[in-house]
């Protein structure tokens, strides 16, 4: 398979309400990614846009809407969409655009403007549920995830205190991120005492709603070697779909993440992920999801992720740094852009450019993961130098 590299990355600040339109945010991130690669639009052969539900921005066919700000004028362009998993799927799509041999250089842009939905983006989520069996109950994602969190906690005997440590860690890491929406350190007590949204989910267990964009530039090997002194290679990709009949799953374990991870590990030739992955950016819209996903990624045994967290293993200077960026819980969660932010973070970390967030010990390989649709899609990308 043809080798594919990431050679540039960029992102906007993540904020609660941006004055910029979605396409203006997309341009800021895309331009920054190109500038960081020392390339211009003329060097770009094709564009991949990732954006989650149209309902957030309030623009149907958001791919077409974002195309100008994403550099797609007079170029082949496609928009991908797998809900929350979009931000990691978009670079996977960029990868196969290039691995196929069709394109040499692809600009990948992810954007979400969630502040447009009024009064709150949760209102848009009701439309993803089945219109006859579920929507009549008025579900929102908070209580859907509360069901999953409760199941996860109960099966493994994990406490809310142990889970809150994830929120504490990620929000602290985000203090070092110049694009971060949240700028406050919190304690376990703060998390437990924050407003109860849907038991067992309190407000600080959840990432904020955000506006923002992120972008990366991907190249074929022969281009990467010419334009970049430090290309970061795509070593593995994986994606997987479980049943959308979520009453047919046991919610305590994300099987779809495991299968996506196995696909990526096989491609990367990884046999012992816990030893061979040096940085992890799992999807963390809720604090328990980081733990859930670490288990699905086979980076620890089922039910063990909470202990790794308590032991400090997942701290930035720990043995397995998890969400050194600050994650969605800290940096913010403009859905698709948040997933791609994780890929940007790996790019900066693996090149030693993460500044105050730099993980010590020259990490050589990182993994980013996202998850979405009706909680049953897993997307995984492994980058290495």
């Amino acid at each position, binding site marked *: 398979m043809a080798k594919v590299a990431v050679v540039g990355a960029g992102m906007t600040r993540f904020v609660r309400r941006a004055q910029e339109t979605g396409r203006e945010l997309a341009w800021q991130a895309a331009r920054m990614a190109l500038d960081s690669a020392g390339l211009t639009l003329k060097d770009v052969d094709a564009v991949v846009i990732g954006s989650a539900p149209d309902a957030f921005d309030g623009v149907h066919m958001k791919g077409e809407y974002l195309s100008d700000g994403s550099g797609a004028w007079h170029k082949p362009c496609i928009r991908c969409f797998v809900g929350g998993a979009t931000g990691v799927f978009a670079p996977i799509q960029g990868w196969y655009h290039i691995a196929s041999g069709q394109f040499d250089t692809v600009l990948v842009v992810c954007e979400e403007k969630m*502040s447009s939905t009024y009064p709150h983006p949760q209102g848009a989520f009701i439309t993803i549920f089945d219109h006859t069996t579920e929507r009549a109950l008025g579900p929102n994602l908070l209580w859907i995830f509360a069901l999953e969190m409760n199941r996860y906690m109960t099966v493994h005997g994990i406490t809310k205190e142990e889970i809150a440590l994830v929120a504490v860690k990620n929000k602290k890491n985000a203090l070092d991120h110049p694009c971060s929406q949240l700028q406050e350190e919190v304690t376990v007590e703060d998390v437990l005492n924050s407003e109860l949204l849907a038991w067992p989910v309190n407000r600080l267990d959840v990432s904020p709603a955000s506006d923002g964009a992120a972008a990366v530039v991907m190249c074929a090997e022969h281009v990467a070697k010419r334009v970049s002194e430090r290309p970061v290679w795509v070593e593995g990709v994986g994606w997987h779909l479980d049943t959308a009949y979520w009453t047919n799953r046991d919610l305590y374990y994300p099987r779809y993440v495991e299968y996506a991870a196995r696909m990526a590990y096989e491609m990367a030739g990884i046999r012992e992920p816990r030893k061979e992955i040096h940085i992890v950016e799992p999807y963390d819209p809720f604090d328990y999801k980081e733990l859930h996903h670490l288990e699905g990624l086979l980076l620890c045994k089922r039910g063990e992720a909470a202990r790794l967290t308590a032991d400090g293993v997942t701290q930035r200077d720990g043995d397995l740094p998890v969400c050194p960026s600050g994650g969605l819980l800290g940096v913010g969660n403009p859905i698709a852009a948040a997933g791609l932010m994780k890929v940007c973070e790996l790019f900066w970390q693996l090149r030693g450019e993460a500044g105050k967030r730099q993980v010590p010990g020259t990490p050589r390989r990182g993994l980013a993961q996202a998850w979405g649709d009706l909680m049953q899609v897993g997307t995984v990308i492994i980058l290495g130098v």
Partner: protein
Amino acid sequence: MLERITNPEEVRTWSGAVPIEHVYTVGVAGEVFFRAIKDRGRLVACVCPDCGTDYLPPRLYCERCFAKTADYRDLEARGTVHTFTVAHFDLDGRRLATPELYAFVRINGSGGGIVHRLGEVAASDVYIGMEVEAVFLPPARRTGSILDIAYFKPVV
């Protein structure tokens, strides 16, 4: 299989809506554009310093070369009818009591234009190439919306 259902109640149905409301920002370039409409009754254009492409409504960046645009300038809200149509039905397929005239107006002195209503003219008198100008609402009633322009009318 191609039977047409004329009464939806004859099959088991479920009625529902996709009830989502939005609050949009006009953006960085949009802010300049709509302030000029509201405060001065003018349209604003800008230009790409790299390739010279002209944008009306103004854009923050040039989509062709990604440069930040410059030279924001006021233009009179006058132009020519690039093309037009006469609408006889509304969005829900109901016949309009009065047909409505819509045109794409190329604004003089710019490479861009806007789509808007035509007024003070009979459909039979409109032609492509006709010179038109915007009729603005009185300043006190303007809100910074594209509907601060009531319609375009022929220049007499």
